Structures are given as structure tokens and as C-alpha cells.
């Protein structure tokens, strides 16, 4: 039976302690780990990430944790990608060349620039750094990730730092949108796989609520050991 913990995958990028501390502030135990066994046994999994898409996916692959990450995402246990961790869920990223992602959510990761967004992007300072609002989709409301924030309207503000944005192939996976140059997908939800482009661990009470919601998502009942043990 999985230990009642949240595993934050430590593949060598990003500031993982603040995610851990934010879960702790809400009373949830999270471990920062690069141990495949610990990730496999945890109740829920967080994939963090900062920096460039290509460097992040390469580092994840080099760390040998790609398959355990994919297994966790496919297992039906709640799985959350944060910032570049959300971007890695997608099929492909274009940051510094084309890179294959984890392909858990069909779509691409594109730069906030004129080539992708037209003349509206001209003269706009990138990265987007600061607080911006979330607009929840029906899929986002049903996901449970934003429970308690549905009526916050302009109050559901969260902290972003990014130069690239996720463009899902299907609007069905979009959980929230945000306006920067144009409306874009700032959160996804596909089954038990979630991704947020912002930093919930740095988004005050709104962010803590989102992490708490994630930590309370239902977990599939454990598979009876008899099924796993060959007769």
C-alpha cells in the first residue's frame, strides 16, 4: 500500500524546497526525492521544473526518472506538473530547438512572441513575471484543483514567471486560461494528470489552496497484493 506521502521528483532542476514547505504549511507531508522506489510508492507525485524545456527534459531523461514519472502519471494517482513541469507534460517544446516531451497531454509549448501571437506581442516584456488572474474552464471546475476558488473572479491571482506557454491540441484538457498578450492555457487537467504554469507555492493563499486541493484528491484504492503476486 502506498505511503501517504507526496513525492516531489528531484531530477536536478529548480527550487523544490519551497514546494515542500508550502505543502507542509497546509499540513501535508511531501518528500523531495530522486529514488524511483519512493516515487513509485508515494500516494501522489509532483513534477517541478524551471529553466528551459530542452534542458529540463534532457535532465529528467539523464536522471533515469522518465519511466517512473510516466508510470506515476499513468497510474491514476494524482500527478501535478508545476511551471516547466507542466510544459514537460506536453508532446513537444520549441525552446532552443525542438524537443520531445512526455506526451501526456497532446500539444506544444511555444514562445510568447510575434511568430506565435502576431503583432500584439511586439514590445511586450517577456518573461511574464508577476501576478495574473486565472479564468477556470468547465473542465477546470470539475477537476477539483480549484475547489473553493470558483467564485474568486479577479481574486484568483497567482504568480507566474515564464517565457513559453502551453498550447494544447484540444481545448478539452484546458483547466484555466490567463490573459497575457492573448488568452492562453495556464492550467491543464486530463484525468488525474494536472499541470499549472504558475507557481502555487509562491501564490499566497490562493496557491496554498490549490496545493491543498491536490493533496486531498482521491487516490485509487490499492491493488490487492494477491493480484500482483503470481500464483
Amino acid at each position: 500500500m502506498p505511503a501517504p506521502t507526496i513525492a516531489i521528483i528531484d531530477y536536478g532542476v529548480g527550487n523544490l524546497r519551497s514546494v515542500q514547505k508550502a505543502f507542509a504549511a497546509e499540513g501535508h507531508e511531501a518528500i523531495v526525492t530522486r529514488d524511483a522506489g519512493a516515487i513509485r510508492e508515494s500516494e501522489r507525485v509532483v513534477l517541478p521544473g524551471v529553466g528551459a524545456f530542452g534542458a529540463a527534459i534532457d535532465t529528467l531523461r539523464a536522471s533515469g526518472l522518465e519511466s517512473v514519472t510516466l508510470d506515476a502519471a499513468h497510474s491514476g494517482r494524482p500527478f501535478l506538473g508545476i511551471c516547466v513541469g507542466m510544459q514537460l507534460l506536453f508532446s513537444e517544446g520549441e525552446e532552443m530547438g525542438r524537443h520531445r516531451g512526455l506526451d501526456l497531454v497532446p500539444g506544444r509549448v511555444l514562445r510568447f512572441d510575434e511568430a506565435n501571437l502576431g503583432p500584439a506581442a511586439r514590445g511586450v516584456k517577456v518573461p511574464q513575471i508577476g501576478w495574473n488572474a486565472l479564468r477556470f474552464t468547465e473542465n477546470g471546475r470539475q477537476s477539483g484543483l480549484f475547489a473553493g476558488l470558483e467564485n474568486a473572479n479577479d481574486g484568483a491571482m497567482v504568480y507566474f514567471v515564464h517565457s513559453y506557454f502551453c498550447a494544447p491540441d484540444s481545448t478539452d484538457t484546458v483547466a484555466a486560461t490567463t490573459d497575457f498578450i492573448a488568452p492562453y492555457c495556464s492550467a491543464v487537467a486530463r484525468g488525474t494528470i494536472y499541470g499549472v504554469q504558475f507557481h502555487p507555492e509562491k501564490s499566497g493563499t490562493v496557491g496554498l489552496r490549490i496545493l491543498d486541493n491536490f493533496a486531498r484528491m482521491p487516490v485509487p484504492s490499492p491493488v490487492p497484493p494477491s493480484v500482483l503476486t503470481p500464483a
Partner: protein
Amino acid sequence: MLTKRIIPCLDVKEGRVVKGVNFLGLRDAGDPVALAAAYDAQGADELVFLDITASHEARGLLFDLAARVAEQVFIPFTVGGGIASVDDFRRILATGADKVSVNSAALKNPDLIRAASERFGSQCVVVAIDPKRTGDTKSGWEVHVHGGRTKTGVDALEWAERVYQLGAGEILLTSMDADGTKAGYDLPMTRAVADLVPIPVIASGGAGTPAHLADALTKGGASAVLLSSILHYGEFTVAQIKEHLSTQGLPIRRASIG
């Protein structure tokens, strides 16, 4: 819509806040964690902790302060003052701080900006630039160090462009002419830097009224404003300032309980 950021700056010495605001009900106005939490509750968008001792002995206390803040305050914060190496960056970011601000060390060794941004990402590298109008450099604004006392011969606009090229994620721009005057920001200088570089500029120095802040964010082209004495003497709260900016039509995050 991306909102403009209001960033209180707390001066720290030996792990304690000096020049802190005496918040009502706050037992210890020198406690960085208590002050950070109070500013967070008022709606601050980020916080900056600036070590004014910048002595090597005080380093450990600064790291400890950052770690304590990160335990309890869940908005982004920057730590600066005497940061001189990639290892200083690593130690500060490992505490849970989000950004590191560098100033004179970057002037002495510009490669520090490149090395830190390559290792940790541009988003955590804030370069503080303290210009003063001297007329001795190309643009007329000359970079100073040691709180405006020492000339460097470096032109502020050329340096701003260079730090961007080296990988800085933001520029914290403090006018040494305006600083402490409460007569308003140096708007032409703020505008010149904001127009030059494609990264956000945080305006600092000279704020005396909320109207000054609005000017820096509109006429000055700044993405954020750093506040010290306007808050420290208790004349305005973050909430009052945000209320004012909001009524001026600026995009501002209103503090709300989730």
C-alpha cells in the same frame, strides 16, 4: 492581465530588520518573518530583503533569515546585499528564496551574471543598478556603488543593456539622485532603461506619495516599484497604495483570501 508589482524592501542587518514598520499588534518589529507575513497580509506582491552589513560574517545569518521567511511566507522574495559568487546564489536559492540581487560584485565580475543565469535560470537573477546624474558618461547617468558614494565611470544605459545580454532577468533601478528625497522617481531615467531592455525594470528611489508610484508605473514604464521609506515611516500601507493605484486604472492585484 499581468498586474504591476508592489514590492516592499526590508533592510536587514545581522539577520534582523532595521527601519522596519511598527505594525499594530506586531511584537517584534525587527523579526523578518513577522514583518514579511504582515506585508504579505497587506497585499505585497513580492518582498526584497537587502543585507546592509554585507559583511562575510553576517552571511550565515542572512541564509538563516531567508530559510525562516520561506517556511512561512508564500509569496516570492529576493535576497541581496554582498552576494559575490555562484555559491552564494546556490545557498540563498536553496533556502526557498526565489531571486538573488547582485550589485557591485556584478560590476567587478560581470561573468557572475552569466554564470548564475546559466546555472539557475535568468528568472532568479536581479541586477541592482544605482545610477546618479553626473554627465560624465554617454547617457549622463553614471553607475555608482557604495550607496552612491563611489563613481564607477560606467554608463547606466550601457550597463543595463550589458546585464540583459549577460542573462539578467530583471533590473532593480535605484536613482541615487532621487533616493531619500520623497520628491518622486527619476522618470526619464526609468523610462530610458525600461525602453532599452526587454526585461522588467523595478523602479526605486524617491517615492513620497502613491501618485509618484503611479508615475513610475506609467510614465516611467516600470513593471514594478520598490518601496522603502514610504512604508517604513508608516505614512502609507501597501493596501492604501494599492487602492490608490487601482483607482488610477492601473492593473493591480487586490489582496484576497482564497
